[in-house]
Structure formats: structure tokens, C-alpha cells
């Protein structure tokens, strides 16, 4: 049937050719094992020399940098919606740093889901600074990797969050379902679009905002909040894995009556992309989202970039940095800048995660880890 099979069969005479030496299988196996051991030993050696060899090289380049102002590069590992913000901010900072020190600085950006980004840094992506969506993802750099000190969040003003945002609603033009506040979302037949808090950092803010709304109501307690959340998620037809996916579901696929999302994302998509189709609704109560920033000590010390990395983050707090923040629809911390952009940021009663949930280190396991309150909504009754 298959003529090619006869080619490889042993019946083929090879008397005219030098005969292949017969090898015992054991011999070959031993050889392969030897090769493997040698290779893995080589790998191990590489790793070692990388660790110890890098620090002299690092300090060396730092020495050169201070002497002759050689250009310096920073890597800022961030989450998804900050792309435009940091594009503008990086060039503003490069100009500031050049004027101040005469040194060129280039900031490379990496964006992605917050959790994924934190894992990348944990697994060895050499970020000089991280600017992530929630404190939990940054704390992990201390808890699991010892890349930053435990007190990282108190090193910069305002919980190391130079800008904030909040959670708001996007609805269809004309608000056909008359959605005004959180309690409208649990009405029968309402379709709510929000990503899965299991995989999306942004979605965790959405969830906590709803929970906090209930607690802030007269007579609101845990039990009522749990009931509210469970009704809310009964109205969610799709749990996208990330915030961008949820926006696509709502905006492009036209599924759902309301999208819960960050204020900065909401303003961006409503004002810049589909003013004719969408509208913004600001609830009465919401969560103050504080995306924290920090230098990654282990990496800046290795690269010799501590000074410029610290300056980079501090520049976020200056009036110039705050203006960039506000232009990209994040709420600035600086009162004067906030006043200037007042029209853009309506008043909302804001609570923090620390205030209502005792911080991320508590909120995460209680609500979002396996078996947490979110999982219990979907767990079949036993």
C-alpha cells in the first residue's frame, strides 16, 4: 500500500555502503542522559553567573551614567487602560529630566491585564517601575518575590496612588432603561455587562463598588450586600475575561443594558468614540479606585536606575504630571488641577477599599479567591 515504507525496512541491502555501526540501546541512552545532565548543568551555571555577574555590570553602567550622562532606559509595567496616559506622560517626563540633568531617558511601556503583568514581573520581567490596577497585584511583588519592601505603599504620598478613578455606568443613548443608580441594576430582566472578577482586576473594583453601595445605604449590612451582589450577577449574561472584552461585548456586539466600568474608560469610549450611541451615568455612591505605583527595588538596584525611577514616579505628583493625568480622564490628586478639570469629574460619594473592606489583602481572599463569596453565587446548592 505504502511504497515508502519499504525504504526504511531492514531488508534493504547495504553491502555497498559502509554499514551503520550497531549500537546497543543502553549505550545511546547513557549518551543522551549524559548530554542532558551536561546541558542542565550548563543552564544552572548560566543562571548563577547571570545573578552574580549582573551586579558589577549594573553598577558599572550606573557609574558611566553619572559621569557622562549616558542615556538611560526605564521599563514601566502597567495595566491595560493606562496606555494613552503613559504615552503622554513619558514624553513630558523625558523633557523634564533632560532639562534638569541633561540626561536622555527613554521609558518603555508594557501593558496587559494587571494580574498577568504582576506575574510577569514576579517571574523575572525586569520592570523598573510598576503602575498597576490594584494594591493586591503590587503587594504580591513583596509577598511572593521580595522584590519590594513591605512598606512600599507608604513610600509615596496618598497610598502611592498619584491618580484615582471610580466606577461608573455606561448606558445606551437616551438611557432607555432609566438606569440611575446601583439598585436599578438588579431589576428583573436587566442585562448587566461586567467582566469576571476572577480574571479581571477592573471587575473586582466593579464588584466592590456595588457591595459598598449597599453598605452605605441606611440599614445596609453584609447579608443585604451578599443578596444584592448575587442578584446583580444573576443579571450578567456574559463574564468576559478582561475589561476590554466587556467593553467590546457592550459597545460592538450591543449586548446588555448597562456596562460597569472605570470612569476614565467610560469617558474615553463615550466622548471619543460613540457620543451618538452611548451615555454616561454616575451612581450616587462608588469606590475610589487607587491604582498604585512603585519602583521595583531589586530591579532598579540591579540596573542602577533608582534615582531616575524615583524621579519618574514623583513627577506624577507635580502639577505638570497631574495635568497629564487629568487630560487622560483620571482624577488628579492635586486640588488645584482637580478644580481646573471639575466639569469632567462629577461629585460622587466615594469610599476606599481600606475603609469598607480592610484593604485588598482582606478583600481578595474573602470575595474573589476560590470558594470566596463570588464563587458561592455560582456554586450549586448542596
Amino acid at each position, binding site marked *: *500500500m505504502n511504497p515508502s515504507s519499504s525504504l526504511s525496512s531492514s531488508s*534493504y541491502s547495504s553491502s555497498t555502503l559502509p554499514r*551503520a555501526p550497531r*549500537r546497543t540501546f543502553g549505550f545511546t541512552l547513557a549518551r543522551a542522559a549524559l548530554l542532558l545532565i551536561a546541558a542542565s548543568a550548563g543552564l544552572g551555571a548560566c543562571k548563577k553567573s547571570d545573578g552574580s555577574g549582573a551586579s558589577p555590570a549594573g553598577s558599572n553602567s550606573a557609574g558611566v551614567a553619572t559621569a557622562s550622562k549616558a542615556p538611560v532606559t526605564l521599563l514601566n509595567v502597567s495595566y491595560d487602560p493606562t496606555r494613552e496616559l503613559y504615552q503622554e506622560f513619558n514624553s513630558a517626563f523625558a523633557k523634564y529630566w533632560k532639562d534638569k540633568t541633561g540626561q536622555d531617558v527613554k521609558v518603555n511601556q508594557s501593558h496587559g491585564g494587571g494580574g498577568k503583568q504582576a*506575574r510577569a514581573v514576579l517571574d523575572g520581567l525586569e520592570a523598573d517601575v510598576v503602575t498597576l490596577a490594584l494594591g493586591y497585584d503590587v503587594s504580591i511583588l513583596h509577598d511572593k518575590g521580595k522584590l519590594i519592601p513591605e512598606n512600599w505603599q507608604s513610600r509615596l504620598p496618598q497610598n502611592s496612588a498619584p491618580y484615582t478613578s471610580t466606577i461608573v455606568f455606561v448606558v445606551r443613548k437616551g438611557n432607555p432603561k432609566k438606569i440611575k443608580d446601583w439598585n436599578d441594576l438588579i431589576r428583573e430582566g436587566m442585562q448587566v455587562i461586567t467582566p*469576571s472578577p476572577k*480574571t479581571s482586576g477592573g471587575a473586582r473594583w466593579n464588584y466592590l463598588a456595588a457591595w459598598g453601595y449597599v453598605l452605605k445605604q441606611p440599614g445596609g449590612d453584609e447579608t443585604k450586600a451578599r443578596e444584592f451582589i448575587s442578584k446583580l450577577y444573576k443579571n450578567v449574561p456574559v463574564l468576559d475575561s478582561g475589561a476590554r472584552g466587556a467593553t467590546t461585548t457592550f459597545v460592538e*456586539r450591543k449586548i446588555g443594558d448597562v456596562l460597569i466600568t472605570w470612569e476614565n474608560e467610560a469617558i474615553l469610549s463615550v466622548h471619543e468614540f460613540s457620543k451618538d450611541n452611548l451615555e454616561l451615568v454616575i451612581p450616587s455612591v462608588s469606590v475610589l479606585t487607587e491604582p498604585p505605583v512603585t519602583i521595583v527595588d531589586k530591579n532598579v538596584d540591579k540596573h542602577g536606575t533608582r534615582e531616575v525611577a524615583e524621579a519618574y514616579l514623583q513627577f506624577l505628583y507635580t502639577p505638570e504630571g497631574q495635568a497629564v493625568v487629568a487630560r487622560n480622564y483620571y482624577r488628579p490628586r492635586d486640588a488645584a488641577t482637580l478644580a481646573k478639570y471639575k466639569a469632567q469629574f462629577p461629585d460622587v460619594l466615594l469610599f476606599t477599599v481600606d475603609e469598607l473592606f480592610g484593604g485588598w489583602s482582606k478583600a481578595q481572599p474573602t470575595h474573589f*479567591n*476560590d470558594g470566596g463569596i463570588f464563587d458561592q453565587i455560582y456554586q450549586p446548592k448542596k
Partner: protein
Amino acid sequence: MRFKTRGVLPGFGLSLGYTVLYVGLLVLLPLSAMIIKASSLGLSEFWLKVTDDRALAAYRLSFGSAFVGSLLNAVFGVLVAWVLVRYRFPGRGIVDALVDLPFALPTAVAGIALTTVYAEHGVLGEQLAKIGVKVAFTPLGVTMALTFIGIPFVVRTVQPVLEEIDPDVEEAAAVLGATRFQTFRRVIFPALLPATLTGFALAFARALGEYGSVVFISGNMPMRTEITPLLIVTKLEQYDYAGATAIAAVMLLASFGMLLLVNLLERWARRAEA
């Protein structure tokens, strides 16, 4: 233990050594790292993690839809291969090239495209909704995506085998008095079976691990449309590396078992043919 190594070309020892090293470094090393990580859980904790309701529901969906998807491909892929090999028609080259598209397309693109088409306001989704069929965000949608990515595996394994079968064989069967069904049943089918099984196994294995295209169309509802790879990502998102690798180890074992089984079946089919 000695192996017969009389071939035309020398170098059996060197090439086998290289093969073992290559497979060891590229396949076994990362996999054993995974197993080691998973074994950092105690046995009872491991068992608890891999058998909770959520995980069981995810296995059912993943294995079920991957199986149905590759079964569909095994039937219709053979049909496509048959048409491509046995008939000459205008646009055949284009159809032939289209078959490979699921290989080349980034899976996320495929997922977004499928979802756009099959969501309730999509081109096809809207029509299907009228007759009460929901594709996007249901297990049906997952199966759809997994069928999509599996097509080339069956077609490309069956096609060359089919090309080898001379149409004369069919004519001979007919001349000898076989009915059309008998010709198919006794002549064509046995020849195609091993390749079809290989294609099925490849498509199935690929579908089991597929993440990119499925997360968009599945809707990711816990207990209903959550695939196993998503569960792994979910665990990673909690920095539960051990839990993630535990689920991964189960997937790995199951896939390996499946592939082994299909290989045995295939060998049996080849022997039956000879």
C-alpha cells in the same frame, strides 16, 4: 538489548541520542517542572483541587466539546479532503488554502470573529435567535470554536493518504460487483481510517488546550461555560501556582491517555487493513 539498525544511512546512535535529548529538553523538562510544582500540594489537597464541582464542570465542558468538535471534523474533514482530492473544480486552490486558515489565524482573532458573527446581534446569530438557537456564550459556541480550529488537522492528515489511493481500485471493486456502499465500506474506509484517527487525535488534543478563541465565545459563566484552561488562568490570577498546575496535570494525563488510546486504535486499524 540490541536493536536492528541496518539502514542505508549510518548514524543511528547519534541521531537517537539527539532525539532523546531534543524531546527531553523541549517536552519532558517543562512538563516535569509542572509535575514537581503540582506535587508541592499534598495528595489530599491535590485531590480536593482537581475534583471540586467547578473543576468537574470545566472538564465536562472541555472534554465534551473537544470530543464533539473533533468528531464533527473527523466526518466532515474527510469529506472536504475527498472533494479536494477527487474533483477538479474552479476555485479548488482557494478552498485548499482556506482549510489552513485556522492554523494561521491568531486564535484570539478567530474567537472575536466567531463571537461577532454568532452573538445575538451578529449576522448569523440574529437569524439563529429567531429559531431559538443560541450559539455565542453557550456550550454550543465553545464546540463551534473548537470545531473551527480543528478542521485543518483532519483534512491535512487524510488528504495525502487519499491521494495515494488510486481511483482504479474503486473501479476494480465495481467491476468485481461491489455496490457503491460496499466499495466505500470495504475499500476506501479501511484505507482512510488510520489517517482519520490521527487527524481526530490531533484535533482533539489541540481543542483541549485551546484558550484564545474560546474565551471570547464561551461567556465564561462558572459551572456552565467555563473551559478548563480558563480555570487554570483563574487560579494563576490568584497566584495559586500549585492549584493551576494541579489542574494542568490532570489535563496532561487525560490528553496523554487519549493520545495513547488513539495511537493504539490506529495501529490496530493499520493491522486490520493489512
